[in-house]
């Protein structure tokens, strides 16, 4: 009996727990082999992947790596808003008919051979022969006609050079290398305007910006062409095999997008990039101390200034200190002068901008066309400002909100706060509203603000047109509504003259508008570039903020030692 039950037990064990044990062993074995299999697959794919990767620099290739703070939205040079599009496309890939020397204003023919004004309304442009696009097709007059027509009405949005498209009535190709441009009005600076128009290939037909982004339509005559655009990461350029002159100095150029300023500076210090701009003023000293890094500073014709609501009887953000609406005090020139006298520009430049700017008494910077040397006093005078306020009838002061961008122009928020504090010292109550650029400009253009920040880079041929749109009574950027018939007359005269003859009118305009405080300029920018002197030698074009690939030359290879 016991024997049988023992046998039964054993039988039961074998039939259940024995099976469980065997099952567990199978599971363990199965798990082991599965783990081994998965592990092998992973290791194999890792090794296989390692053999296929993209490599960073080697000593053999000359590669220029540029760190850019902004990424263009498209590679279509006729669609775009700011310098990001120009530095990415132009003139490294697309070239204009005429271009400027390093001084920023001397014109030389690039794709054109020459020009002549047959009469004030007609220009004939002769093109160079034998030029070829990066797809092998010939460059001729058809491309010029196509480009200028497309500029007037591009698929998508257009670049803000309305003064160029407004000037052109129509363009005709007389023979394969001669183009006649008929103008709407006498435009003596037209050739200078053409400096900003890169030539496209007529072969692209009705290509839209998306076609440029895919690189299908991005065909230019320049020394480089696009190899790849990895969104959010970088643009890669290679040499254009059809370029007319000797090959470009760099085999490859990489434009890396690093929006965080501190990270970009760190990348320059680490040698991950060779060249960059938009260096925060607090980091410049660090870069100057570093060996192998050179910092170049260029005083620019760009001011940070404020529009003041001069026109409206009731300004939206100006009230009495108790909140009651009042008659707009900004209409009184004495109040505006008081606002200007209360600002200590030297202090702002020294403390907030670390000296990388110059205090501005007028809109146009010294040394540039339209600058009036007698207007140079930036000494603050708070007691005089108080006095002016009292004379204007505002001994109790008033309340105001100051509007500006947040982070678009370096330490703009701190500048706004400093200005508010300075105005409080003369008895005003000031609030600051710093708004991100995407939202700010729309509202600014709608004239929603009373005192609002703005800035515009003035190029040599672009000075008079920009001053017009800002200060002319009908100018579309005349946010404050400033209106002075004398200024309007002077502007008309300036725009009808060649740039070299505009000084007198522009200087008079500067005197009148400074007296009227039409705008409130604070400082003139200094563009700061940093580059690794062990790899590259960079010369910025005067008064240009963009990074220009063609201005960077490699240092002789024998001096290159560091490779990552």
């Amino acid at each position: 009996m016991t024997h049988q039950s023992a046998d039964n037990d054993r039988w039961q064990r074998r039939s259940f727990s024995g099976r469980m044990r065997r099952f567990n062993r199978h599971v363990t074995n199965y798990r082991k082999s599965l783990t081994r299999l998965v592990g092998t697959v992973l290791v194999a794919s890792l090794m296989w992947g390692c053999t296929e990767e993209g490599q960073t620099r080697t000593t053999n290739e000359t590669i220029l790596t540029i760190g850019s703070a902004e990424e263009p939205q498209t590679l279509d040079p006729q669609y775009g808003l700011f310098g990001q599009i120009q530095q990415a496309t132009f003139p490294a890939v697309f070239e204009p008919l005429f271009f400027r020397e390093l001084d920023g204003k001397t014109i030389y023919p690039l794709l054109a051979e020459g020009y002549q004004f047959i009469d004030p309304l007609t220009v004939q442009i002769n093109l160079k022969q034998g030029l070829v696009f990066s797809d092998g097709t010939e460059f001729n007059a058809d491309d010029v006609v196509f480009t200028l027509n497309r500029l007037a009405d591009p698929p998508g949005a257009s670049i803000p050079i309305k003064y160029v498209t407004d000037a052109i009535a129509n363009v005709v190709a007389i023979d394969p290398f001669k183009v006649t441009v008929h103008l709407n009005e006498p435009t003596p600076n037209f050739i200078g305007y053409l400096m900003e128009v890169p030539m496209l290939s007529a072969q692209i037909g009705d290509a839209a910006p998306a076609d440029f982004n895919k690189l299908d339509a991005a065909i230019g005559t320049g020394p480089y062409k696009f190899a790849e655009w990895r969104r959010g990461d970088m643009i890669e350029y290679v040499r254009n095999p059809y370029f007319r002159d000797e090959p470009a100095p760099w085999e490859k150029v990489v434009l890396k997008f690093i929006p965080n300023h501190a990270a970009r500076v760190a990348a320059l210090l680490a040698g991950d990039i060779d060249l960059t701009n938009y260096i925060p003023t607090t980091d410049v000293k660090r870069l100057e101390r570093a060996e192998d890094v050179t910092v170049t500073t260029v005083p620019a014709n760009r001011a940070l200034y404020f529009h003041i609501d001069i026109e409206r009887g009731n300004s939206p953000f100006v009230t009495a200190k108790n909140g009651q609406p009042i008659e707009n005090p900004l209409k009184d020139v004495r109040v505006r002068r008081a606002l200007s006298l209360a600002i200590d520009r030297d202090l702002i430049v020294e403390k907030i901008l670390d000296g990388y700017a110059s205090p501005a008494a007028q809109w146009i910077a010294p040394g540039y066309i339209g600058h009036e040397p007698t207007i140079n006093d930036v000494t603050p005078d708070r007691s005089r400002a108080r006095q002016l306020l009292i004379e204007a009838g505002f001994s109790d002061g008033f309340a105001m909100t100051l509007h500006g961008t947040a982070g678009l122009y370096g330490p703009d928020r701190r500048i706004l706060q400093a200005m508010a504090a300075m105005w409080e010292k003369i008895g005003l109550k000031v609030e600051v509203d710093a708004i991100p650029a995407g939202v700010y400009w729309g509202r600014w253009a709608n004239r929603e603000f009373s005192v609002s920040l703005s800035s515009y880079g003035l190029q040599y041929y672009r000075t008079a047109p920009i001053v017009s749109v800002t200060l002319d009574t009908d100018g579309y950027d005349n946010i404050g509504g400033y209106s002075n018939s004398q200024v309007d007359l002077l502007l008309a005269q300036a725009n009808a003259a060649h740039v070299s003859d505009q000084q007198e009118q522009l200087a008079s305009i500067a005197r009148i508008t400074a007296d009227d405080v039409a705008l409130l300029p604070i400082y003139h920018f200094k563009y700061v570039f940093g580059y690794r002197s062990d790899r590259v030698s960079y010369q910025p074009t005067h008064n240009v903020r963009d990074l220009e690939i063609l201005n960077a030359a490699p240092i002789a290879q024998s001096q290159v030692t560091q490779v990552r």
Partner: protein
Amino acid sequence: MVSILLLRIGQSAISLLGISFVVFASVFLIGEPASLYDPLVREDPARLAALRSELGLDQPLYIQYINFLRDVVTGKFGTSWVYQEPAMQVILERLPATLELVALAIAIAFCIGYPLGLLSGWKKPSALSASIERISVLGYSAPTFWVGLVLIYIFAVGANALPSIGRGGTAQVFGIQLSLFTADGISHLILPALTLSLYEIGYFTRMISTMTEETKHKTFISFAHAKGLPVSRVISNHLLKAISAPLVTIVAIETGALIAGSVITETVFAWPGVGKLLVDSVAALDRPVIVAFVLLTAIAFLVLNLAADLVQMLMDPTLRPKGVPA
């Protein structure tokens, strides 16, 4: 099981609808994208009107929303105003970069946080456990952008050992370009993944520490001790199983949070992922991309949660609805 799945999917769809409406309404109320799109429209009302109608901005809000929903259901998320390409394509181009960053960050956080948390929880109360907890606080209080920059300065600028910015060379893996499997790619991944994982290390450590501490006093653990099992077996065979179920949920939620919250790290390291895309799109008021991104993140969260719940149900029989076999 299937009915549960269907119920959960139905609930998720309702959540998705609510989210889409909130996002759509809030983006609509901000800014005037037309003037950013083309600055010339400011002085030309006819051009502005034409542009607004082309972008569909002149329709009443509810019609724009209905059009949007219809497009979403048929798979079109609209065309990005900035890139002139389908919004979903713009996002999917950059998704692999973010996903590999998040994957590595979660892996690092898990590998560091799990053992630390176990140690801290098991040894409570003790000096070791207290110091681990204090250090973990640093993990989730240090601001990401600062940590990232410090790491760059130490490893890239100072030691010159790792690259400071950008993504490394990629290799094609199952049709997707990933930089996880290339040596150059990994060297670029380390610093951003470390930065991103810091918060999670602190979080995981504390969570696991708390759960371990709660579980170690339970009866079945005492029983395991009483049986004479060594501590390592008590932990590996009994404790881990008990805390794994809620851990799955936590990991799933944190993965979703990292996908959505990698923005700052990506900006600091110039990492070409969807986080940076979102920042750029918000700055440019590129509404189609913003809405598509938020919906994508919402879907990711819901899917991750659903997966976490299912895995939990598989792991823990007590969580299964009654009558459902294993």
